[in-house]
């Protein structure tokens, strides 16, 4: 059989989870990570990252809106997917998806954004006419109380939501990791570290994308980049990355040292089929290189321009590396047979339902949604991006 080496079970010819299932954890990871960056400012009072607070929230929202799409595209019967909400099978890790997702979307993100933007929404509503007036009125739910008392309440509620939101963000992505980590049939996935590794890689990728977006948008709008903010974000990216890399290395070393039943198969995979995507792209290019760059900035004094360039390159490499990590987990975990006696290959279609084209469209969609969100809810004001809540 072409693309097959050794023996695979006859039913294993077809790979079950495609590139769309690679995209899903990548997207939710960006959501969780961006939110955690936003909460740094709100809950942990890291004032330096305030300029990116709202941008991080909107980024999280844009990606979260798209997150279920690849799953729906992948299902054999998307029209039945709502059954998971109405009649979930409580033993299943996957059955929680709808609840975790909706809770995070409505209970955390949308609410927090709404409370944070209420003052802006009311002001815009009162100042505009026609359709725009109706639209912003609807967004405020036609409540125009912006007394100091009400604003204080908004701020307090926003803070409470963020505090609830942090464990929710952990839940959102840790749970995605659990879906993989709890499959005992698959030695590549089955590890209790999986949710933790997913979570930290999520934080890393979320911070990286907000950092890149902040730089790109500032450049496009011709505004000055707040270097204190950028340096702080990069520092947190560095911290998160070190933890993430340590966890992944621990997992790898543990597997190599334990050299269990499945090790031969996995060892072969990493040395052959996954060598480029795992060793070269994920570990060298997407992890070690950005960590070294970010570490260099901590140790050596570069000027502003050099730092910005380093951050841009490191951030881009980070996203590539985390995407490769998702790929290696999802696709890599399906390349070897459960008989551990053979290997198969993943052939990606192009214009098929689960091919490269829909994958690219789904990856670009959040940016389009973000562009709209930035128009409707501008995260900056002319007074150098004041946040809606009090300092």
């Amino acid at each position, binding site marked *: 059989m072409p693309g097959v080496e050794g023996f695979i079970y006859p039913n294993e010819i077809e790979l079950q989870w495609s590139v769309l299932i690679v995209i899903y954890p990548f997207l939710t990871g960006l959501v969780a990570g961006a939110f955690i960056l936003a909460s740094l400012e709100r809950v942990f009072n890291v004032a330096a990252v305030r300029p990116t607070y709202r941008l991080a929230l909107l980024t999280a929202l844009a990606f979260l809106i798209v997150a279920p799409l690849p799953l729906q595209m992948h299902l054999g019967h998307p029209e039945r997917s709502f059954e998971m909400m109405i009649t979930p099978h409580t033993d299943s890790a996957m059955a929680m998806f709808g609840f975790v997702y909706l809770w995070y979307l409505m209970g955390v993100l949308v609410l927090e954004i709404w409370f944070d933007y209420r003052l802006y929404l009311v002001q815009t509503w009162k100042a505009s006419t026609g359709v725009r007036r109706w639209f912003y009125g609807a967004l405020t739910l036609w409540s125009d109380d912006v007394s100091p008392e009400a604003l204080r309440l908004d701020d307090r509620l926003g803070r409470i939501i963020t505090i609830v939101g942090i464990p929710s963000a952990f839940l959102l992505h840790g749970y995605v990791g659990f879906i993989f980590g709890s499959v005992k*049939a698959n030695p590549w996935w089955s590890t209790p570290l999986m949710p933790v590794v997913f979570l930290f890689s999520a934080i890393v990728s979320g911070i990286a994308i907000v950092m890149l977006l902040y730089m790109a948008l500032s450049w496009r709008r011709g505004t000055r980049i707040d270097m204190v903010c950028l340096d702080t974000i990069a520092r947190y990216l560095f911290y998160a990355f070190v933890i993430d890399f340590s966890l992944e290395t621990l997992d790898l070393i543990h597997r190599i040292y334990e050299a269990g039943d499945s090790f031969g198969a996995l060892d072969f995979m990493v040395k052959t089929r996954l060598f480029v995507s795992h060793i070269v792209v994920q570990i060298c290019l997407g992890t070690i290189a950005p960590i070294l760059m970010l570490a260099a900035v901590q140790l050596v004094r570069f000027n502003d321009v050099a730092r910005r360039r380093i951050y841009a390159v490191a951030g881009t490499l980070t996203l590539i590396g985390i995407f490769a990590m998702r790929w290696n987990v999802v696709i890599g975990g399906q390349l070897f047979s459960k008989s551990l006696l053979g290997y198969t290959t993943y052939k990606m279609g192009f214009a098929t339902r689960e091919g490269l084209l829909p994958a690219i469209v789904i990856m670009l969609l959040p940016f389009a949604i973000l562009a709209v969100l930035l128009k409707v809810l501008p995260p900056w004001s002319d007074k150098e991006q004041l946040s809606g809540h009090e300092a």
Partner: protein
Amino acid sequence: MDQNRRAFLKQSTRYVLLTGAATVAWEYIVAGAPEQAPNYRIADHWWGMTIDVDACIGSGNCVRACKEENNVPLEDGYFRTWVERYRVDPADPEHPLVDSPNGGYDGFPQIDNPGGRFKTFFVPKMCNHCADSPCTQVCPVGATFDSPDGVVLVDKERCVGCRYCVQACPYGCRFIDPRTHTADKCTLCYHRITQGLTTACAEVCPTGARKLVDFKDPKDPVHEFLRTHRIHVLKPELATGAKVYYNGLDGAVR
């Protein structure tokens, strides 16, 4: 009037063609719920299978019969049951040579065994109808379920086609039916065994290597079989509670 005549004709035809008990059961069988027929008590059964590796000659009869009986797609890659051929070098049992051309559907081509160095044998595979099945555990909508008589089944009307169960099955027993986009697997011929018949694969096995067994039936020879043979299940370390018991299973089998 017309309706009455039709009903009368239907009923009397049934009485002419079927025996008394079968007549009563017919309604349920047609409705696809034979287990509710009065002559099948679901609580009286706990189904499983025994496979005698020493007896299997790799005829492929079971694979063909299964595809025929259960309307399984004929292409390679879709099997409710299949047969693997093992060649084990006694000096290197860790790395057996295994093949299963088209799941054994067309039988097995002759292979060389120079000097009789290799130990060769066939291993029929199928759903293990696990008592603690990982596939049932992970189904987000409960489309895969355990019947009270110990058979793991899929409700095609409920399955959303997420493929999580395919990932969760350690034995590679599941596939997605390309026609319905839902999960599919061996049903232990539930439509047959609830009517007192054996499974299609066991029915056609020329050597009697596969046997449907009922652990709740005190008269079933399975009890004697399990007592007098060296029995093994596949991948016992995964604690799935597999109910397909192999006699003479070699350690090299995965």
